[in-house]
């Protein structure tokens, strides 16, 4: 179909800049990953392949605790956000337009619009009040804060999935004697499941990546991996941080690849 002598889509320079762009995007990340396997303690001089820094990170109690905390917070926040986002998506798509729908959209997407640092400061102030009033300083603050900013990320794919779903399927179920609950259980839920999985995965990744809000909300000794790394950056850095970064990176890429193929199968 394409004309061999004159390619209409080609604009000179575009491909060159694009390739440069991909190189620039990946070069630092690749460097970081490569030097995490360096035997020496330099991040510039290559002294041979080794898993030394992974062992160092693995044996570091602070890293262990931060890693576990990160996973606990991300899993809890993603679970909460996904459940709430699923309910909200059902409420805003399955019942037709209603007064206030725009308001609900705006409120749910609000964390995407307010700069993180502002939310972080607001939560710092608010949670400080509660901490003083109740004396409780546990992980619940972090989980609540993470769940809140994960809600829009979980909501978007679930809502997209529901909007692509024919309303007449649920009508057909009701017509065939399914109560509203049975309709949900047998028709809506199975059909929206891929959206829920996608939403949960995005929420998990988003929570795992957060630095700013965690940095402000956490109580003493509640570092997650990213805030632990941020703290390390102030000191002399060793490839240990590269190793932690590479591990986190691998987890993210793994989840994204799963997401990519999940999407692909659906289309």
């Amino acid at each position, binding site marked *: 179909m394409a004309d061999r002598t004159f390619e*209409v*889509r080609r*604009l*000179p320079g*575009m*491909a060159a*800049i*694009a390739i440069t*762009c*991909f190189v*620039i*995007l990946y070069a*630092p*990340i690749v*460097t*970081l990953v490569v030097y995490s396997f360096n035997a020496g303690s330099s991040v*510039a001089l290559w002294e041979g392949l080794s898993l030394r820094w992974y062992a160092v990170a693995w044996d570091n109690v602070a890293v262990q605790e931060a890693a576990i905390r990160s996973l606990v917070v991300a899993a809890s926040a993603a679970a909460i956000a996904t*459940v*709430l*986002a699923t*309910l*909200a998506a*059902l*409420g*805003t798509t399955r*019942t037709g337009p*209603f007064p206030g*729908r725009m308001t609900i959209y705006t409120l*749910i997407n*609000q*964390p995407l*619009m*307010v*700069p*993180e*640092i*502002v939310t972080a*400061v*607001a939560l*710092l*102030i608010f949670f*400080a009040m509660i901490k003083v009033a109740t004396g409780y300083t546990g992980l619940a603050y972090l989980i*609540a*804060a993470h*769940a*809140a900013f994960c809600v829009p990320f979980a*909501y978007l794919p679930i809502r997209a999935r529901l909007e692509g779903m024919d309303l007449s399927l649920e009508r057909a179920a009701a017509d065939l004697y399914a109560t509203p609950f049975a309709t949900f259980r047998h028709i809506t839920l199975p059909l929206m499941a891929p959206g829920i999985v996608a939403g949960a995965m995005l929420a998990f*990744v988003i929570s795992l*990546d957060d*630095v*700013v809000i965690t940095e402000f909300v956490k109580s003493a000794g509640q570092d997650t991996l*990213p805030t632990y*790394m*941020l703290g390390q950056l102030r000191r002399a850095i060793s490839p240990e*941080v590269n190793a932690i*970064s590479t591990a986190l*990176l691998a987890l*993210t890429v793994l989840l*994204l690849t799963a997401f*990519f193929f999940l999407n692909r199968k659906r289309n």
Partner: protein
Amino acid sequence: MARPSLRTRSPEEQAARSARIRASWLLSTPALILLTFAAFGPLLIVLAYSFVAPGEYSGVVWELSGQGWFEVLFTRDIFDDTVSLAQAHLSIFWRSASLSLLTTLITLIFGFPTAYFIATRPERQRPLWLFLITIPFWTNLLIRTFAIMEVIRNEGIVNTVLLNLGIIDQPLQMLYTYGSVLLGMAYVYLPLMVLPIYASMERFDFRLVEAGYDLYASRLDILRLIVLPIVKPGIVAGSILVFVPSLGAYVTPRVLGGGNNMMLGNLIELQFGQGRNWPLGAALSITLLIIVACALVFYVRAANREDPHG
């Protein structure tokens, strides 16, 4: 057809309608409650804090005061009580604004060709290229900033290579400069520019380009008169998506800028850390929020104007 002048609902219609509305709100309520407590509710407290007096060590004293807002732009000399513009703050505002605008510009210059490139790949390759853009997009921002830091550090790979090649005889100080912050921000926010431009380019009908060439347009004409105007909504969206978080950036300037290249986000943090002036921090936060809101309103206006389909 008959247009009923009087509209009263039958009891059945009314019941069905209110049940529907009630269900919608009921289902959305749990999410709204969480967001109220852990997202937008506390913003109101910040607003309140910006109007009270600072406490001695931290926190606030609950009395009405314009001190916080006053200190956003002015300082009062401790000794002679004279009022002058807060130069430190002004230079941070200026740095935030210039860095954000430059970041947007640089990501646009690199992002547009990248999006164009992906959109013109054969259909089967496109998901893969897109995936290559999404990986950095979802990768932890701190990790990406850290990766840049390692490359440009004095002991980093760039300096080491240059030194070994004898091009320089002592490391270039690249880290902790205005330039390093700009580089880092452009690097971390680039995917945010590419994705929306690609989204509008994907729907672009390349037969229009053929029609353009058919009507004697040059390549530059094609870009200027056909491609750019049609993908403009994507460009506007991408610019907002880069500009807004740039303005509130915290991690990147902190890691790559050191103490001398603070941006608004770092200034805010300072008020809740060492500076301990919560009302000032609150006022600065609200200021940032207002600027972002203005940018978003501008965007919504522009988007509505651009999109002929409403």
